[in-house]
């Protein structure tokens, strides 16, 4: 049974619709990450699940019961905010205890539970401090502790790491993932950082303009993007998109090369977009896909990004860092046909 289900969820602010029917089922114990560009409706979705925003249309179910009209506290959820929102006038212990206010636990049980949570988050010695005496990472941990202490059936995180510096963010990312493996609650996590999404999620939900673009494991969304938006959004640097034509079931490249591809869902002749990741392009002698002149090199250590000017536009290639082609050199690039993505140029939908 799904722990959390969204059925045809719609949100309107006045006459503007910002969510256009979200459908999603989240299994018990699953770690789901919502990702998408700014303004796509991630926070709105999360806040509707939390009960902080009214549902305009559709149904939200948590643990099998409809919660549309329940107060946040009755939904058995907990939320961690981007700004932490821990109360500055209360000690860490009090802040965490706040999460237990509506619980029916006895006093000693509550105290034990707070100690336990503090132990898990390794901040037992911080319990008597005030938030102003904590670092950013520690504050975020207090916020997580306040959410954890109630053992909710669904944890909601709204960009909890975006205020931390890069190093701390990587560390907290790992900590949250470990925490999830340890406590096993269902987690819905919102971010606009695709690396965060890829590294933490069991399943990623990619959103754009109030619509879900694709739902899948990190592997699926990376290797089998359903449309050009997902293809470009996931993976860094972004997938190269080349305009091409399709005729007789073959893809004709801008420079005239024809490639035979299997598994196409349509053989209709027409304009297509051919997607290929920078990692999948390799210098070749024969079976060339495209060629062009190297304009810029960006050494990253183990590999070097090279920018190649081609008739189909500029493309990025991840080259071996030890012997990258020189600027000005003409390179012939090819790719394993299995790693090519074919999209309809009009609709952006995948064709195989």
């Amino acid at each position, binding site marked *: 049974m799904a722990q959390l289900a969204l059925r045809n969820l719609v949100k309107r602010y006045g006459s503007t619709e910002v969510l256009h029917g979200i459908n999603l089922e989240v299994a018990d114990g699953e770690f789901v990450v919502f990702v998408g560009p700014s303004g796509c409706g991630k926070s709105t979705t999360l806040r509707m699940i939390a*009960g902080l925003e009214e549902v305009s249309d559709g149904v939200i179910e948590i643990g099998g019961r409809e919660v549309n009209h329940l107060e946040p506290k009755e939904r058995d959820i907990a939320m961690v905010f981007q700004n932490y929102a821990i109360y*500055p006038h209360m000690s860490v212990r009090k802040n965490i205890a706040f999460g237990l206010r509506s619980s029916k636990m006895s006093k000693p049980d509550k105290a034990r539970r707070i100690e336990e949570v503090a132990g898990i988050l390794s901040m037992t010695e911080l319990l008597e401090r005030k938030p102003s005496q904590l670092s950013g990472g520690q504050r975020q941990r207090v916020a997580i502790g306040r959410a954890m202490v109630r053992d909710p059936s669904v944890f909601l995180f709204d960009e909890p790491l975006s*205020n931390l510096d890069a190093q701390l963010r990587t560390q907290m990312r790992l900590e949250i993932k470990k925490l999830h493996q340890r406590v096993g609650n269902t987690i819905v996590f919102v971010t606009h950082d695709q690396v965060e999404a890829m590294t933490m999620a069991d399943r990623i939900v990619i959103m754009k303009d109030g619509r879900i673009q694709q739902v899948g494991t990190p592997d699926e969304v990376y290797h089998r993007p359903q449309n050009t938006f997902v293809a470009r959004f996931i993976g860094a640097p972004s997938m190269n998109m080349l305009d091409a034509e399709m005729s007789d079931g073959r893809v004709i490249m801008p420079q005239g090369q024809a490639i035979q591809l299997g598994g196409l869902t349509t053989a209709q002749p027409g304009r297509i977009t051919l997607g290929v990741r920078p990692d999948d392009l390799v210098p070749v002698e024969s079976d060339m896909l495209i060629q062009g002149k190297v304009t810029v090199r960006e050494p990253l250590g183990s590999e070097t990004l090279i920018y190649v000017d081609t008739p189909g536009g500029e493309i990025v290639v991840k080259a071996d860092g030890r012997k990258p082609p020189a600027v000005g050199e003409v390179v012939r690039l090819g790719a394993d046909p299995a790693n090519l993505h074919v999209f309809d140029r009009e609709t952006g939908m995948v064709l195989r």
Partner: protein
Amino acid sequence: MTAAPDLPDQARPTSDALFRASPSRRPRNMGQTIRWLLLFAGGIAMVMPIAYMISTSLKWPHEVYNVNLIPEEPMIENYTYVLEDGRFYLWFWNSLFIATITTVANLFFDSLVGYTLCKFRFPGRKLVFIAILSTLMIPTEMLVIPWYLMSQSFGWLDSYWGIMFPGLMTAFGTFLMKQFFESVPDDFIEAARIDGLNELQIWWTVAMPLVKPALAALAIFVFLGNWTAFLWPLIVTNSTDMYTLPVGLSSFGDEADVAWELIMTGAAISTIPTLIVFLIFQRFIIRGVVMAGLKG
């Protein structure tokens, strides 16, 4: 001061070097001099009335109209006279009671209304806010007559309630609190909502502690305003027993002559509670309380 570290003799700065190293001892430029002078003048302007108040309270009646600051024959009898007059204590109590109740009422109502106007979205919110603000444009002098007529009809003349009711909630306080609640991030309120608090609890346990500096400032304003209020208490009270301290003090003396030395004595004594209130509440006026729980 920490002890000077043991330096080799050559490294020890000579007094000459020290003097040259501190140019800030001399005023740096004209601008600074002018600033100091202005501050000095401001300081004098504020201290002089207080100095004269104390000076006059130590003078004999015949000397009151001399402008000398040091009384020729200082005497303390004015104080014993005022403190032995039983009415003084009654007025003092009246003022204290009224100012305290009014302050508490303002802290409660202004912040409750300010919070509601700031954090809730409901139809007519802007209109209510503008209506409250627009009352700021009407001076007290214009309101005392309607207040008086109203008090007369309700039978509130010459009563504590009559003195207090116009000030139990103020537009200024409401505005002040609303502005301060703007600085309380919605995340706090939503977090509390998820933690299971009802709206009144959120206001009281989460929002109010975060605006303590504003509450302290408001408490000082309201207390001082009511402690020194004169016009309305004068109009609404009839019996000497209901006078507040300023009204009572002004009644010292007789029709022919105002007893300034006694009025100043009473005024000097009556500044004590305002000092106490100020000392209590100014501790809370510390900035930056709100931000501490957010991203650092």
